[in-house]
């Protein structure tokens, strides 16, 4: 474990700089040296930013918070791949995945539904609005029955959990050639639709959520699968099939897309 101590790297970074939502952006080149392979990608950007601050330059803005892969704040396009070469979040990507001398293009998520706020930070409030449209079970505090009153088959509960692990980072949208948020939407439709508690609103939920995803300038799904391939939580394409199934069922039952 002492072998990595002395080996450091130098990298060329080409980073998207954009002052705010209304200004035009461009790629700007930076050089970072003494990068340790044990650094996380964001720690490497921290080092760059401290240098920029001391030089009197504007540091690069990027969203981040927990830095342990669960809050979903971070997300960068690194050399054209959402969250970079490993299937994880950027905060859990370490510099040992790169080599000395690499040139890295770093861009924000690009989607009509995710306008750039500054540099690498984007506005993902469209995701909240999709949840707000129907991604819940209406159970006001105080109304809950005893937890054991409805057993849930373990198989369903586990599948619901798998879908519920979505962290809302937006990599699916960023990677999708259509800029579609269908994997995000489908993960929540699956999570709630697989639980008995979620049945009463199952039809209206899928109708409202899909109507909202379409309204937020996200594209439609064309079943390509880039989303699932970059998802840090490995949400499966199966969830989209389930969403489609539920939506068609809801329409057959006389449901109307609405919110």
């Amino acid at each position, binding site marked *: 474990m*002492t072998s990595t101590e002395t080996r450091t790297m130098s990298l060329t970074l080409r980073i998207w700089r954009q002052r705010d939502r209304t200004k035009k952006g461009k790629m700007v080149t930076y050089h970072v040296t003494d990068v340790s392979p044990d650094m996380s990608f964001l720690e490497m950007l*921290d080092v760059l930013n*401290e240098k920029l601050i001391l030089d009197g330059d504007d540091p690069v803005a990027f969203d981040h*918070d*927990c830095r*342990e892969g669960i809050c*979903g704040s971070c997300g960068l396009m690194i050399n054209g791949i959402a969250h970079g070469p490993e299937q994880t979040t950027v905060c859990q990507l370490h510099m040992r995945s790169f080599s000395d001398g690499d040139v890295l293009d770093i861009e924000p998520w690009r989607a009509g539904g995710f306008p750039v706020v500054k540099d690498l930070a984007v506005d993902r409030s469209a995701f909240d609005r999709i*949840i707000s449209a129907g991604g819940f079970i209406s159970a006001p505090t105080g109304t809950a029955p005893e937890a054991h009153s409805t057993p849930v088959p373990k198989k369903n509960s586990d599948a619901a959990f798998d879908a519920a692990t979505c962290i809302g980072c937006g990599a699916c949208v960023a990677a999708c050639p259509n800029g579609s948020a269908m994997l995000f939407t489908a993960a929540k439709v699956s999570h709630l639709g697989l639980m008995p508690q979620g049945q009463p609103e199952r039809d209206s939920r899928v109708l409202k959520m899909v109507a909202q995803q379409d309204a937020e300038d996200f594209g439609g799904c064309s079943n390509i699968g880039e989303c699932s391939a970059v998802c840090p939580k490995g949400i499966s394409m199966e969830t989209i099939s389930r969403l489609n199934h539920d939506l068609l069922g809801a329409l057959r039952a006389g449901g109307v897309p609405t919110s």
Partner: protein
Amino acid sequence: MPLELFTVGEPIADTTAPRDVPLPDRWNERKFRARLVNPANRRRLSIIVVGTGLAGGSAAATLAEMGYRVKNFWFQDSPRRAHSVAAQGGINAAKNYRNDGDSVHRLFYDTVKGGDFRSREDNSYRLAEVSAAIIDQAVAQGVPFAREYGGLLDNRSFGGAQVSRTFYARGQTGQQLLYGAYQALERQIGLGNVEQHPRTEMLDLIVVDGKARGIVVRHLITGEITSHFADAVVLASGGYSNVFYLSTNAKGSNVTAAWRAHKRGALFANPCYTQIHPTCIPVSGDYQSKLTLMSESLRNDGRVWVPKERGDDRNPKDIPEDERDYYLERNYPAFGNLVPRDIASRQAKAVCDEGRGVGPNGLGVYLDFSDAIARVGQAAIEAKYGNLFDMYNRITGENAYETGMRIYPAVHYTMGGLWVDYDLSSNIPGLFVIGEANFSDQGANRLGASALMQGLADGYFVLPSTISNYLADGPFPAVDATHPAAVEAEQSVRAQTERLLSINGTRTVASFHRELGKLMWDLCGMERSEPGLRKALDRIPEIRHEFWTNVKVSGEQGIFNQNLEHAGRVADFIELAELMCVDALHRNESCGGHFRAESQTPEGEALRDDENYAYVAAWEYTPEGEPPVLHREALEYEYVHLAQRSYK
């Protein structure tokens, strides 16, 4: 205690818990005695909620469901990002589904004992009492807790508890519970009952005629500084572990909202009570920005050791058995590797201080699985802990099945916080504080799987019941941004922002944060001593002075400026650090997460001093240069018997 550190003010007391009825009846009695607001009037009452974690999110949703007008503020882009999302282990509830003798009283007792007899009986009892309803609520929302094949909820024993009362959703319990609250909140936002303010940071509290009536905020994207008003303000802004710079908290977690309220008169209680978790991944270099916790469950199968010789940097596999020191097994033959968090943490520090630590900077100990792998096979270990081994591999690049893990303690929770009474009201009328931001339920040490319980208890059940007693007097006279108190608060926020940007010194904000954090970790961390704390108290004012004369904050006020945000938070951490050290120095006893070198048993264990320190230390803010004022709240134990902990 020398007088220059602090002065002693009037004692305080909680007057809202109905002490005239037996403990088990007090919460019901309190709800009965509290005045109510009729549903039609609730629409005329507004409540500001700061934060969207388990406490804030659940409170905002619930208050909106009840019909109040809620204004919810958070600094992240989405309510779903609040740091509660990162909690791994689980949530306790006295359901007794395992028929193993659990009860509300037992959970209450365990909480008070686990808190090393420094929490309020009333609050801890209520926490245990509402715990079961939290599980019902979460299940109704669709939280996918782990289940057994029969379809019923699974439980596990956690943190050395003798009963299985912990509900969990794999290693992501916090995430799933938070999403439950988040979805309930989003539903209310969709219904128009909650006004949302994302990416907005609270920077001051507006107090009008002695009542909390609003907050001053900065919109983090536009830099706009505005005031917002309501009939009550609820702070759910989390803990302050990031005063140590390196902690398991999210990078954005901060004390600013709570600290600014403290500067407006809210008492800050027990700031020195911090919890240190023994099984985190060690620091790998100076660039390190945060620490990652790994579930304590690893200690069930891993053996903790360091080399007997200092400076032994051989590959651990090459160090023969008789040259290893399994120090926990040696010192605590009965509990071995499963001693409580505080003991495991302190012991790791002790061997590293002796120079026997391992890893790049000597701050680590081995957690070795080779015996377990030899006993049950790698496949069995993989099935149990595979995700943790993967996480370790991702962060360190090492294969822990072969080399074992290196672990080191890290700060991850703060029991201290703003002082509140049984109604969760601070000493400023109209200012309520919930979740980790208050001090109330955990005492000097928090049990595993209790943080999620407290956040949700406060947000779903306690606050919505108690706040009506206060709001029954409302609506209060309208206040707007032209009110002198609002003008003054807004101006002070602008002044501070401008001052930070104008210093243009030579050191970055991060360098101050790192220096402060290291100082706090070394001198006010796992073990505290009078000389060390005095040294810290000499140094912190110097750091503060240098910060305000030599910090370099980049950019402008009117744009998205993360460096400016950080600067404001570090400024508050510096002030908090000083109060923490004063609190730690004045509390000349060891209790829970607060270990004073001067107060230990002959065996080196924490020694409480119930005669002199069985109280809550609630501190009143005084301007720079004047010593803070200590208000004591005596802790009385009617239902539990004070005892010294022993794990030998």
